[in-house]
């Protein structure tokens, strides 16, 4: 969709656009969009625009009611703001009128939230529904401008009318392409790439930022990175936003070191930035970098104690120190600040899992999915909880959701396979393990499980091949403190038996010999060796008697009969 030639940005135009956008957004109290635009603007501070363009920004005469309403709005006196703008028809006070009503509803919802009803009951939304009806009527009469459309979309989304909301956001973007908030909300709603490509979007430079954002949101990390690299190369190399997004992409790709490096650089450039630090703390957590995480937590607390990101960092820190109840406390604090904060829900679910509180974990994971259906960690977590609850059908559904979001992550498919095995569906389980091996097994257990299932399904040759591979791999990794020794030696035992049955005594002998190294399989190994020895003796005797037997036997014998085997039969017994 985006070829190299297509992406040509004229930075001076962008700069003018940004100035307009920042002005419009901050006049309407859309602070997050204004912040984002300003950050982008700052990253191209070196570009100078022609002075005449600067003067173009006409000085508008603001009405008295607008300035009154805006001052109330800034002081978060939303109801007053709404009251004094009721009769206004100019776009800005009109927007403030509607927006302040919305914010008032949301603020009251947060204020009324207690420990017990976090998040607030979604069905108690009468005020929101009424506001929605008012907007619906205005929309029908075509009285909504781009910003009001955005607000309408937000409310629809809050009311879970997502497909309607998506259309409205597209309209809003076409009217006001400089309003980043609308793009961002749309990005959360686009379910997949085909929908994305079918959207009727304006050809505007903001679209590139949007596309990259959506790709990242959809875990399509490669395409996201491509665009970010492009933007990076076209003059936005100083943008902290792009850096953070790239770091997240690396994190998603499990290129942890690269991501950590990126975050470190980011914090060097912008030491008081809290945005996305939760992702950074996740990285440090996974890498078990305790001191780094502690440092990060202290820095974050110093910047702002009551930010969701800070709470999340601290939560992760406690979790790494196995103080799970404390971690939960901090995640809960984050959720009190913002009940829509995805990371905290998922991480809290993990903590509850650690504390063996399955019900609370399920609730947390479900909330996470309510916030964002693409959170594969929450789906996976749900699968795990239902595994504990011994509800395998649910388990399969949840693991499947996770697997579809991360088709190349072996953990999900492995979990799926295990559940199929529990449901006595060996074929399906086998296919899962097979796929897990194919996508690159992280934990190294897929292969042996696959082998066992092949065996169970009487696919003996396949089983043996899988076991052989398993042994080869494990042999290599044993230095790294591998503790699944039993599996390892059982594999040897299986292979010894397999080869013995096939009369491949040489191989059988080698594997049986390995068995003796381990306590559990020692006895088995010994008896195997004995059996091999008898077989050998039989075969030799047999060979003497009937030297002109079938070719198979001859070849078998010739494989084994290199003499060295004979002596080895007894040598382990001496040890």
């Amino acid at each position, binding site marked *: 969709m985006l070829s190299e030639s297509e992406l040509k940005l004229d930075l001076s135009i962008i700069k003018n656009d940004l100035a307009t956008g920042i002005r419009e957004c901050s006049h309407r109290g859309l602070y997050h969009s204004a912040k984002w635009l300003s950050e982008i603007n700052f990253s191209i501070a070196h570009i100078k625009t022609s002075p005449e363009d600067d003067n173009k920004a006409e000085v508008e005469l603001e009405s008295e009611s607008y300035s009154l309403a805006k001052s109330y709005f800034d002081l978060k006196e939303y109801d007053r703001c709404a009251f004094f703008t009721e009769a206004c028809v100019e776009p800005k006070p009109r927007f403030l009128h509607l927006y302040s009503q919305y914010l008032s509803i949301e603020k009251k919802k947060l204020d009324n939230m207690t420990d017990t009803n976090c998040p607030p009951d979604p069905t108690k939304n009468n005020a929101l529904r009424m506001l929605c009806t008012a907007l619906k009527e205005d929309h029908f009469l075509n009285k909504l401008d781009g910003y009001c459309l955005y607000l309408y979309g937000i409310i629809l989304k809050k009311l879970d009318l997502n497909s309607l909301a998506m259309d409205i956001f597209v309209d809003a973007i076409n009217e006001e392409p400089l309003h980043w908030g609308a793009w961002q909300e749309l990005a959360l709603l686009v379910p997949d790439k085909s929908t994305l490509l079918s959207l009727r979007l304006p050809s505007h430079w903001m679209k590139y930022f949007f596309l990259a954002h959506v790709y990242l949101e959809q875990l399509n990390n490669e395409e996201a990175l491509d665009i970010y690299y492009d933007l990076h190369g076209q003059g936005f190399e100083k943008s902290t936003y792009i850096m953070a997004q790239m770091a997240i992409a690396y994190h998603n790709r499990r290129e942890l070191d690269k991501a950590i490096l990126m975050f470190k650089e980011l914090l060097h450039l912008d030491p008081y930035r809290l945005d996305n630090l939760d992702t950074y703390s996740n990285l440090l957590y996974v890498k078990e970098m305790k001191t780094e995480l502690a440092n990060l937590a202290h820095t974050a607390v110093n910047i702002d104690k009551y930010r969701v990101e800070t709470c999340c960092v601290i939560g992760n820190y406690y979790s790494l120190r196995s103080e799970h109840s404390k971690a939960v406390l901090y995640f809960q604090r984050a959720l009190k600040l913002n009940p829509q904060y995805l990371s905290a829900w998922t991480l809290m679910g993990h903590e509850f899992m650690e504390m063996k509180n399955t019900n609370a974990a399920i609730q947390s994971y479900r909330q996470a999915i309510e916030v964002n259906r693409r959170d594969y960690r929450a789906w996976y977590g749900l699968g795990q909880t239902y595994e504990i609850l011994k509800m395998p059908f649910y388990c399969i559904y949840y693991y499947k959701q996770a697997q579809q979001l991360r088709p190349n992550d072996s953990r999900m498919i492995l979990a799926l396979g295990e559940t199929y095995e529990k*449901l006595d569906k060996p074929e*399906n389980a086998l296919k899962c393990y097979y796929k897990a091996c194919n996508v690159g097994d992280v934990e190294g257990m897929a292969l042996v499980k696959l082998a066992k299932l092949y065996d169970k*399904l009487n696919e003996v040759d396949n089983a043996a091949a899988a076991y052989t591979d398993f042994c080869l791999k494990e*042999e290599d990794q044993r230095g790294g403190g591998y503790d699944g020794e039993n599996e390892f030696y059982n594999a040897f035992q299986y292979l010894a038996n397999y080869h013995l049955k096939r009369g491949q005594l040489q191989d059988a002998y080698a594997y049986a010999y390995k068995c003796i190294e381990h306590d559990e399989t020692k006895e088995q190994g010994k008896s195997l060796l004995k059996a091999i020895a008898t077989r050998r003796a039989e075969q030799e005797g047999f060979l003497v008697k009937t030297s002109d037997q079938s070719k198979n036997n001859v070849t078998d014998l010739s494989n084994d009969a290199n003499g060295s085997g004979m002596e080895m039969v007894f040598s382990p017994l001496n040890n």
Partner: protein
Amino acid sequence: MKIVSVDNINVDNYRKLVHTYLNLHAYNTALFWADKVVALTSGNPRDIYWLAQCMFLLKQFHRAAHLLRSKNLDKSYILCNYLTVRCLFEANELNEALKVLNSMDLEVFLQTGNTSCNVSIDAGMFDDTPKYQVQSSVLLLKGKVLEAMDNRGLASECYKQALQCDVYCFEAFDSLICHHMLSAAEEQELLNSLPIAQQCTTAEAEVLRTLYKSKLKKYNTIVGVIPTKTCKPIYHNTPLQTSLIVLHKKFVNIAETPKASTTSCTPTSEVGMDKTEDSKAEHMVLDSLENSIQIRLQQSLDLAVSQAELFYYNCDYVQCSKLTENILKEDPYHAACLPIHISCMVELKQSNKLFTLAHNLVDLYPNLAISWFAVGCYYYVIGTIWTLVAVENEHDQAMAAYFKMSLTFVYIGLECGLTNNVRLAERFFQQAQIIAPDDPFVMHEMGVIAFQNLDFETAEKHFQDALIRVKPIKDSIVPERWEPLLNNLGHTCRKLKKYCEALEYHHQALVLCPQSASTYSAIAYVHSLVNNIEDAVHWFHKALGLRRDDTFSTTMLNYVIEQLSMEQLPYPDAPDFIPDYDIGTNVEEDTTTNDNAGNSSERQITASDMSIEVDL
């Protein structure tokens, strides 16, 4: 003590005194002097009538009635008869009242009135009330008595006759309309049959028609969205006036909707057109509209109340409460507005406002039913039904007056429906439908009954009829109230195996009333029926997310999720056969690290092999 001759006294002076004091509402003084006049004139019927009138105004009903009847005046004088009946009616002696009423033949009075000078002169002597108005009042009173005795059929006949005698007799009209004695068609017929043209001038006739029109059945006309361009608001800015202007605009629009009449406002604009022939026609129309009597009359809160009622019946509660709030700002205790206002607040669940209002009302008018109605509504909103029941029992009579008849039938029907007495429920709804054949509420309930009778085709028809009535002209905004209708239509379509339509209706219901657990699970159920299991699982999950103890959804989810897990491929691109093991080579191709590992371990084994050999 000096003896004064009767002849020296001008009794008329005393009569004047009585009138003056009556006008000043000094009834006791008036009574005193009226009594003296009667004594002086030794029982002049006219003076006795005035004495009785004073007693009536002092609420001494029995005394007045006794006075008139003991002198037998109720049999010979129409006004005395009227007053007697009035007194007995007020004293709640209904049978007596009717007896007295029937003791005088109205027809005789009217016919003989022209010839027999005795009665007519006497009647005219009492005061100069025109005869047809007296007649109309008598008929109205008769109607009231009959209605109080629960004889609705005869009562409505009396009201109609009263109205025929005197088209200005609003009370008769109001009784017919407000107590839902007529069906919508009959109301229209009544309005057309009135001898308005005979009794008033053309202009007055127009005004009267307009006023009466505004009172007619509300739920026949559904107001669409009002296009703003019809009138430009160039009026003054006080909130009430603007609201009245808005109201006027809507009024014009009602006239334009096909169902409503075309008489109300369009004629005036035509008049305006006649007057102005130049290009500024439109402006002049506006001017003439502004000066027209209709616009002036909009200042009457009564019409605003009618508009509010219209909003209420269209379920536009927000608009309605805005309007009623403005009305109550003007007239805080507007009797007709209060019930609508209170009902509106119930719909909008504004418990705090309701609490304040109910308190004020009970403090000021503890005897009025509306006060207790407000209290009851407050308890209803905050959810303590038991108190409501208590209040309701206490003021049963009062409540009955406020609940509109057809709605009452609907409620009774609902009650029966809930107790599964389907037959009975159906009867009630049919009764309601006779009164208001176009009322979508009734149609909806009929549909529900048909649905419960498993007659899905009829149910669908009823629901569709209702939907057509509910949907405004441009198919834009259906009030939230109608969410059940759409859902029911969805259920019916599902029963009729029209699954796509069912889904469509449920989704429409969701737009009206988002985040409803039951709608979610209905959607899920349809999906599961068309074997769209993945979607079914998704929607059941959503339903349970909102209502965790929903057994239907839980059971269904268990079932569909099991089906899903068993039927679906383990992952999207899974092969349908058991794959042969060839991963070793794959892995070697894919990742170099594994490749190395494999090779080196192979080498290791051989090496160890070798070493053992060497050892030995």
